[in-house]
């Protein structure tokens, strides 16, 4: 099984496992929450119950917001681009037909070189005229092979699901790290599929080289920790010497995720087995673990879901920032 598939499988497994545990916790705490809301006793266990219910509601909201935003953003981009759709040229049509991609290609008039695979049920491939103009037939074939991998794997759909899980399960921050890992791996896997089909790296490498944005001034060298590589840099390393990107989860997020899940298990089963009021120390430990994980994960996910990811703006491309050269 390919690394990208393994990464996605692991992500889904972890997400479903965590969801099951958290739903169990919810089911256990719901009666207590109701009791508080309807004016019952407000002992410490009930307060914890209400707190956890608030965290859960927040998670569901974040998950749905992530889904909604992704759909909206995708629709908006596609609508904008497809309004500039042109007829698929014979050259592109021929290359596509040989790869069994006939009828699955859209070409849009745009001087910027880009290509992507989009939509969920029956994905399609979008190419810009700027890209087609720059590539020769062999390079175009390599790019289409790369996109065909995404198309066959339904990667756009997988990406939406992965991000949905990461947002909804913000108390398990490891899920977000798995999403990032999967994001790199799916590109590497698509490159590998193209290289295998082409019988070598040359065409794909030269296509990638042609579409790189202009050189940045920084030079970190090839031997930098993988964590600081951009997706494209990781892909280049894989193409150049087959160096794979290892799964590197941060200790903090593993600890927080493990802690949160353990805490959820303790709270769910302790409360389920002993409906009598829980003792304060038995509650405070797990509850504060859960809260810590929630606070850390929420900060990150809210930034992802609510705010526009604006990092590259700030660092590199304020349209007319101070001259840096």
């Amino acid at each position, binding site marked *: 099984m390919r690394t990208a598939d393994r990464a996605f499988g692991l992500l889904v497994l972890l997400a479903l496992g965590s969801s099951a545990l958290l739903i169990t916790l919810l089911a256990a705490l719901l009666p207590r929450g109701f009791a508080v809301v309807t004016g019952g006793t407000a002992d410490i266990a009930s307060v914890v119950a209400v707190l956890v219910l608030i965290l859960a509601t927040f998670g569901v909201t974040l998950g749905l917001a992530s889904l909604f935003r992704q759909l909206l953003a*995708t629709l908006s981009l596609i609508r904008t681009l497809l309004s500039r759709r042109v007829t698929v040229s014979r050259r592109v049509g021929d290359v596509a037909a040989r790869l069994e991609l006939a009828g699955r290609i859209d070409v849009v008039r745009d001087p910027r070189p880009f290509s992507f*695979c989009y939509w969920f049920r029956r994905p399609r491939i979008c190419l810009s005229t700027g890209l087609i103009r720059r590539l020769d037939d062999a390079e175009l074939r390599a790019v289409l092979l790369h996109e065909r991998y995404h198309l066959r794997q339904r990667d756009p759909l997988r990406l939406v699901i992965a991000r949905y899980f990461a947002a909804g399960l913000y108390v398990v921050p490891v899920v977000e790290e798995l999403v990032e890992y999967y994001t790199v791996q799916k590109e590497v896997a698509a490159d590998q599929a193209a290289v295998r089909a082409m019988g070598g790296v*040359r065409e794909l490498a030269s296509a990638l080289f042609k579409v790189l*944005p*202009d050189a940045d001034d920084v030079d970190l060298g090839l031997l930098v920790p993988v964590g600081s590589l951009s997706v*494209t840099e990781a892909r280049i390393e894989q193409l150049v010497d087959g160096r794979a990107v290892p799964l590197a989860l941060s200790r903090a997020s593993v600890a927080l995720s493990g802690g949160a899940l353990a805490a959820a298990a303790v709270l769910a089963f302790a409360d389920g087995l002993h409906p009598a009021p829980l003792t304060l120390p038995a509650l405070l430990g797990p509850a504060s673990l859960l809260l810590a994980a929630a606070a850390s994960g929420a900060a990150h996910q809210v930034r992802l879901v609510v705010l526009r990811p604006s990092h590259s703006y700030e660092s590199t491309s304020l349209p*007319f920032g101070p001259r840096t050269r």
Partner: protein
Amino acid sequence: MPDDVRRLKRARRDGPNAFLGPLETAVMDRLWKRKQATVRDVVDDLAKSRPLAYTTVMTIMTRLHAKGLLVRDRDGKTYVYRPAFTRDEHRARLSQDLVRGLVDEFGDVALAQFTAELDSVDASHRAALRRIAGSDK
């Protein structure tokens, strides 16, 4: 940030000169032609086609300087302005911003892309890629 997003949106619609207003474009055109100029030079140049007050042109040039498009040196009491970039460099910078903006602007787009993250690639990776792009490995 919303300002930049709006600017990018407008730019995508209007093409490469959209980050500049019409007066700014006129002033930059003069500067690119003359290589360097004082505010007075530009006012005189523009007077034939578009009479503008000295203070208007001064404001525009100060703004272009603040945006990093013009550099200036003091010559006695007046400033002499020069373009910070050639016209081609300016265009290249703009299109690079737009490419990065495409992904940023639409936020969480659910796409799998060949030109995926049009993110930074340092010189060593660039050189390594160029090497295998030219070889038969």
